[in-house]
């Protein structure tokens, strides 16, 4: 998994431990049964969400311990929300909920326009106060970056500050990272793996197939 140095700024790649590689070896394998695919994807998503949450600021807070002693700790700050790109992005919602129980989740539906072959926004439903929130943009695969760029434009048009957006995905291609950061250099991409390239059909190579299809029984 060679990573060109010029694309790694503002990319938070999960530490490539053997344990993480082991998880990926299961979801990359084309013979993996769906139940395992879902289970091990969820485990990776959980790691991505934890990494994303770690980017959020905290403020100092004094609390009282059971010994009635004051302890100077920290408290989580700022409201967050998730925004998933339908359909594959929805697979990451549960992982987010596992860490933030009552998190609000917005949805954006983007599909390829059959006439222009370009991604087109079909539907968006976002929390009213999204401009005050930190946003976790959820889409498992960053290939060309087309839909992620469009979704991010929607968020920014709704008043979300770019530095408050974190784009979480399981697998990214260098082309996608470059395209995305050309548009939004200040947005952090949090990913679990970066593959060498896109193939001639713009699929991540070696990749893990169509995430949405493999996760959602089609």
């Amino acid at each position: 998994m060679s990573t060109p140095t010029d694309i790694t700024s503002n990319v938070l790649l999960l530490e490539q431990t053997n344990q993480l590689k082991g998880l990926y070896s299961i979801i990359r394998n084309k013979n993996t049964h769906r139940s395992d695919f879902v289970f091990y994807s969820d485990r990776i998503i959980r790691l991505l969400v934890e990494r994303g949450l770690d980017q959020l600021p905290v403020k100092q807070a004094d609390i009282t311990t059971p010994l009635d002693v004051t302890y100077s700790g920290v408290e989580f700050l700022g409201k967050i929300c998730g925004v998933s790109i339908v359909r594959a992005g929805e697979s990451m919602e549960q992982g987010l909920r596992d860490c933030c129980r009552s998190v609000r989740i917005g949805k954006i539906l983007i599909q390829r326009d059959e006439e222009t072959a370009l991604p087109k926004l079909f539907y968006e439903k976002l929390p009213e106060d999204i401009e005050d929130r930190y946003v976790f943009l959820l889409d498992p695969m960053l290939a060309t970056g087309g839909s992620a760029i469009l979704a991010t434009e929607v968020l920014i048009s709704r008043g979300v500050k770019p530095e408050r957006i974190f784009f979480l995905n399981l697998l990214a291609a260098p082309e996608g990272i470059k395209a995305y950061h050309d548009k939004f250099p200040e947005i952090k991409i949090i990913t679990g793996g970066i593959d060498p390239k896109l193939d001639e059909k713009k699929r991540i190579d070696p990749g893990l197939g169509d995430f949405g299809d493999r996760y959602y029984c089609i």
Partner: protein
Amino acid sequence: MQHQFRSPFPKSSLVSELSSASTSSSSLISNSDVETTLIAANKTNATVPIAQHEQGQDQDPLHNIQQNRPRRRSSRIGPKNGSYYSASSSAPSLSATSLHLDSHAASHAANSEAVIERYTPPWTEPYIIGIAGPSGSGKTSIASKIIQEINTPWTVLLSLDNYYKPLLPEQRKLALTGDWNFDTPDAVDLELCYQTVLDLKEGRKGHVPVYSFTEHARTQDIITVYGANVIVIEGIHALHDEKLRSLMNLKVYVDTELDICLARRLSRDILSRGRDLAGALNQWGRFVKPDAERFVKPTMRSADLIVPRGSENVVAISLLIKHIKKQLIKKSERHLDMLDKLTDAVNGGMSVKLDPKNHPDQLVVLPESNQSKGIYTILLNKHSSRDDFIFYFDRIATTLVNKALESHEFKPVTIETPLNVQFRTVEPQDTPIAVSIIRSGDCFMHSLRKTLPEIAVGKLLIQSDSLTGEPQLHTESLPLSISAKNTKVLLLDAQIISGAAVIMAIQVLLDHGVREEDISVICYLANEIGLRRVLMAFKKVKIVVGVIGFRENINPDSGENAEVWFRSRFIDARYFGTS
């Protein structure tokens, strides 16, 4: 036989214990169709009675006495230095504890010359008592009286009745007509008994055969005993074999008039065992009495102590018990002392702060992050709701479990992705098992199952004596796969305080054949003192820790620490809602 049990115990409480006898005790033995692991006090109380009698019913009172006995008595030694950080999982109330930093520092200064680097579990130095005497002399009564009075977990009663040699068919015919001699030392497999005791003494499982008096053969059952603090060997020839004697710390001979023995034996044989008078007398005259004179009585010379008049001799028995208790207190003090002295001398002892960098192969500390600090704050806050407490503990626990899995072994593998591309990567080498230290380790169960849904889980119950702080193992139930080669074990405990419980748990795993390097302890909060001891005692065990509590964080003025968990197990109490 039942009246014989009552007579030596005049205490009224005992009678009520007898009458409220539960039936669970008899199932203890009879359930062992397959190999059963019996641990003293796996019924929360203390003793494993292992004895098989002809009909079982004369044994019941003994079982029941042991089952229903209160676990602790007031006759315990007082607290000594170092015992304030009791690792009691019965969770002392947080406010009731008080820390005396000075006395602690002093105790460590005093101990600093004598540093111990290895842990010796109490069960490899069991206190072994042999009780011999003629049939009907009251050995069983005295043994049960001792067990009841010393009230120590992991007390094992080995009856030589279990070790009768199986009979050949023609011998069995003789036995059925009362013509076979059961009273010579040759009838008993003393070598096997020696092996059982030796196994226990060397930290292995001991196997006790079960003898059927109706078949005059060993049954299919084997009772497995592991780990004994005190072993009482009881039988007419208990002092016969020199090798067996050499293992004993105390040898007792019960010397009762043979007339009285006969009277007791007759009433037991006729009333409880359905024999007729003539048969019983015949056996007495032909075998029991002559062999008592010939083989049993001479072993009196090897005894340290002779109890005349058997179980009626209340004064002698109480002196005997006092002596045993004194020896057990010394043993317990040695154990605590050793735990105290397990100090990290290599890195400057307690005077130098523990630096995880000095233990790169052993210690993994979760990197500090905004989230981990925030979760820590929520868990320490007494105003956090239980809902939040459980949720955030589960979150950090999942992170810890993942962290622990990182250090496991992986092997290369080539897979094919849906694009039909070959991809070389790694996959886990083996399936680990988990062992939870009840109850604090159980807090990890949810996150463990979310991470490794099919993992086999074993349990250990280790509790500290409420007065001395000495850790005591009460129950072990471990997955069968633990004995497979190179099994990786995740040992779960939410908190390390004195380290005593974890040290003992690791020793149990080692006794079951697990290698040190295959054990990963997963712990959220670890006190520096306890952590040092574990690192010292086991130099290859990995420990994954969320937060280390350093002694320097203790406020020297108040002697209190803002971080409550230095001396108290509070995670399990809050997680399970018992505080």
